């Protein structure tokens, strides 16, 4: 844990084997950490910073996102080809959705509640209806996509394509790719600033962060 004001490490919390991803519920402050080797999700109380429960999901959970609308937690299980849906209040797994070969990154649109799941091996993104849990479509992107983030300002969906050195930009209303932006060497992570709409992309091999925004 890092104090956002002072920038100092305030503590560490032990979780499961090979923790890979984490997400915070804006509704409850609970922190969800995927333990890739254990096939579980650790739930951390954001107030006490202690692990309050461990939830069994699918094989090799690597991605996690929380719906800001419903508090539902979506976990991408890479080796199982599924997404586990967790009730944010009870911690119960309420559904398992088949999505593809190797789901990795996952994000929820704050505008629509739709869930975007990146399939690393199929070079596409599955779209899940947040209410019904049904896969409503797949969107082809670049080669070996890794991560996904949604802009709360525009509904735009950003997907890092690791082997193409590009980011696919998807219109969140039509769910079609509207542009492809060249970035650095092997883009992996992506996040959107809710304040400015700027998109930050980590380029693994050239040790840089590309900032994507609107041209002035």
């Amino acid at each position, binding site marked *: 844990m890092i104090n956002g004001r002072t920038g100092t490490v305030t503590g560490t919390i032990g979780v499961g084997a090979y*923790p890979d991803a*984490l997400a915070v*519920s*804006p509704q409850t402050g609970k922190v969800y950490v995927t333990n890739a080797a254990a096939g579980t999700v650790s739930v951390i109380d954001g107030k006490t910073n202690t692990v309050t429960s461990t939830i069994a999901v699918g094989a090799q959970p690597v991605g996690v996102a929380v719906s800001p609308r419903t508090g539902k937690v979506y976990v991408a299980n890479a080796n199982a080809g599924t997404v586990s849906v967790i009730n944010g209040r009870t911690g119960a797994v309420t559904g398992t959705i088949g999505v593809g070969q190797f789901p990795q990154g996952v994000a929820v649109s704050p505008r629509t509640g739709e869930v975007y799941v990146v399939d690393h091996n199929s070079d596409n993104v599955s779209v899940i209806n947040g209410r019904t849990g049904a896969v409503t479509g797949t969107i082809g992107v670049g080669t070996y996509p890794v991560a996904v983030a949604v802009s709360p300002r525009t509904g735009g969906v950003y997907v890092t394509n690791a082997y193409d050195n590009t980011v696919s930009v998807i219109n969140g209303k039509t769910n079609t790719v509207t542009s492809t932006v060249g970035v650095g060497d092997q883009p992996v*992570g992506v996040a959107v600033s809710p304040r400015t709409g700027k998109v930050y*992309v980590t380029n693994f091999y050239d040790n840089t962060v590309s900032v994507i925004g609107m041209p002035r």
Partner: protein
Amino acid sequence: MSAGKFGKRFAALAAVLTAGFGLAAAQPADAAARAPACQPVVIQTIGAVQLPEGVAVSPRTGKVYVAGIGGPVSVISGRTGTVTGTIPVGFTTYAVASARGPTRSTSPAPSAAWCG
């Protein structure tokens, strides 16, 4: 009608006409400025930590936190895009997340446009 009164009226009409033409002239420029709004581009490239992977933005401060396989977490100013500090964490980091999501009062109103 005095010439002065006519002159005033003419001036007012001229002002309206000018404003009208100004608007007409400005519209294509505005449209041109709006059109690429759905075509985002790379506006900056920032040197970060070694082998950066996870990235998260604080909805409160706009600060950007980048986790690197190489070790420390980089802190980037959301305003200037410069690395303002690094936080040694003593272990390999893959992912980061900000502890407080946007609340109803602090989250920005979504823009009307549905674009990237």
